């Protein structure tokens, strides 16, 4: 059991992954600098510049050459420096990375991980607070996960690297510096399994990445008001562990989904649709979504009004309980 930040947990997880000789790390500033968030700190020194590669500044080039490296037998872990900079790589991710296995009738395997720090709340300038997960979750052929805490970070990155499918790996950047005890010995749950992080009976809150903590905060406040909310950390966005959510909702009858991306066609929409299909008679209220508004992410001084917080979650809970 070691106490570590989420950054450090990722670093340790990557370090463990790099023990496999085919694993590579690629990206902008991942080597000498150790990444702008220091997630890859020290890895160049310990594994050398054939394994930890500072690339030219070109996201399409990074993902595209990483595909070629997969084809020649490597398992690259690509870092996209910030969420807003993944879009130049969209063509390589959506038309190539996601489809090449199907294209080849299974002959080709692309075991790539694309790491993306995501979400707002760090007071950054434009393009540094985006939540692009729905684009990739909507893309068949990809797996998409998001960690929310150091322990998951440590294990999930290793599981993602072991997956023979491409995995888009979202890291909650505003939680990077949160600490927790990480048990590097205990066996982790499967990568694509959601986790119930708090039990409750009056309603269910679903979050992932940075909003798991928001849900927990809301649940704590609600408890003081005498309401027991269940909180689920999705962990996996594609595939969704919809069964864990369904089981919860079938007990609580009420569900709110919380994320930072626009609610319009965000994960909340999918979960609402899927849960309503599965729990039509058990739902006491429609599934509600608490999330980003349908406008570009605002400047830092306004982000507190944009980001879903415990208040907004509790408003949704109130609304759920009016039904």
């Amino acid at each position, binding site marked *: 059991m070691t106490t570590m930040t989420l950054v450090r947990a990722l670093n340790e997880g990557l370090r463990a992954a790099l023990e496999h000789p085919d694993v590579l790390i690629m990206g902008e500033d991942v080597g000498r600098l150790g990444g702008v968030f220091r997630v890859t700190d020290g890895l160049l020194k310990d594994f050398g510049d054939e394994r930890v590669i500072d690339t030219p500044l070109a996201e399409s*080039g990074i993902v*595209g*050459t*990483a595909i070629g490296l*997969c084809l020649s037998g490597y398992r690259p872990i690509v870092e996209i420096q910030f969420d807003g900079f993944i879009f130049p790589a969209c063509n390589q991710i959506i*038309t190539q990375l996601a489809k090449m296995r199907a294209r*080849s*009738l299974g002959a080709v395997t692309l075991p790539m991980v694309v790491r993306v720090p995501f979400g707002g709340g760090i007071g950054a300038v434009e393009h540094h607070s985006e939540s692009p997960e729905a684009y990739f979750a909507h893309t*068949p052929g990809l797996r998409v996960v998001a960690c929310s805490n150091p322990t998951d970070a440590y294990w999930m990155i290793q599981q993602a690297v072991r997956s023979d*499918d491409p995995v888009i790996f979202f890291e909650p950047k505003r939680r990077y510096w949160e600490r927790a005890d990480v048990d590097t010995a205990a066996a982790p749950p499967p990568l694509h399994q959601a986790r119930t992080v708090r039990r409750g009976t009056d309603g269910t809150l679903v979050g992932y990445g940075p909003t798991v903590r928001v849900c927990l905060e809301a649940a704590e406040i609600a408890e003081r008001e005498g309401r027991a909310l269940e909180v689920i950390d999705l962990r996996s966005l594609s595939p969704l562990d919809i069964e864990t959510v369904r089981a919860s909702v079938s007990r609580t009858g009420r569900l709110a989904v919380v994320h930072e991306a626009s609610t319009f066609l965000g994960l909340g929409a999918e979960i609402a649709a899927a849960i309503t299909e599965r729990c039509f008679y058990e739902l006491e209220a429609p599934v509600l979504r608490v999330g980003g508004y349908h406008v570009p992410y605002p400047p830092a001084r306004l982000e507190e009004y944009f980001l879903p917080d415990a208040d907004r979650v509790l408003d949704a809970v109130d609304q759920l309980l009016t039904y």
Partner: protein
Amino acid sequence: MGMQIDADESIGESEYGDGVQLLAPDGRRRDHPDYPLRVTAEQCRALYRDMVLTRRLDAEAVLLQRQGELGMWIPSLGQEAAQIGSARAARPGDHVFPAYREHGVALCRGVEPATLMGLFRGVNHGGWDPATHGFHLYTIVIGSQVLHATGYAMGLRKRGTEGAVLAYFGDGAASQGDVNEAFNFAAVFDAPVVFFCQNNQWAISEPNERQTRVPIYQRAAGYGFPSVRVDGNDVLACLAVTASALERARGGGGPTLVEAVTYRMGPHTTADDPSRYRRPEEVELWARRDPIERLRRLLVAEAYAGDDFFAEVRRDADELTAGLRVAVRGMPDPSPEAIFAHAYAEPHPLVQEHAAAALAAIGADA
């Protein structure tokens, strides 16, 4: 608009600048100081055979398309020298990344012609194993494969594996960001990759001058690696230039860009109507620069081959096309399970759910 057409049949300095030529249009060998190619009669015959088979395969595919056996076809007509010359320069251990028109290259890499046609018939998106053939799948999104090729080459270098990569793309593709990023990655990482641009003068309806203001091969210098223009209808020049570039790559010399100047004699695809955008005289001019005829002249002039040989090649081609016809016609439609079988390497519950629902519905209908 419209490309400048040289009245002269030859592809000479006037039009192609420093285009390397080892076989003049009249079939005579020419020397080039940088590419002292020695080829045997046997090699020349083999190249001829490859080119004829490619052309016949292509013609057969056009027919099969007309008959509805293929949904679409992308003719390679006219580009046989560029494809066979370059492909025969590659070794079995090299890895080749085609675009989608490289049927001659596919043949050289041992892909069964009928297998190649699977994707045009619409039974799959590419039915061969890239590893087996050292020949990647066709890539339709223009330019994307050039980055894959570069990454593959980076991998070869990283492992210290003997071998080089050969990446095909077109004159239109040279405008894509991905291709230029690939040039830069290859240069920075000294990747053993040969970028082989078949400049067939057209990107669907757009002529060269809509894609670039200067010859494409000149692009490489700005990224810090050498390049060469070659007469793309001269199979010997394509062979020599590509072999030299691959050799350089294998020896740690890094990337090379080869621009093979050739011509797309047919429509862009069987769905295209080139009469809307190019003049018949241009096509006629290039018909007179036919790459196969050029090599035939050499074979005859040098007595490398006699009537027997030509008859044998014809028979081989007849056989190939006859077999192809049967194989393509007999190619069964895939079963609906194939929709779901290969999207993921590991189980995916939503896909399983979708597959179960879809297959049940199909079963119920049947």
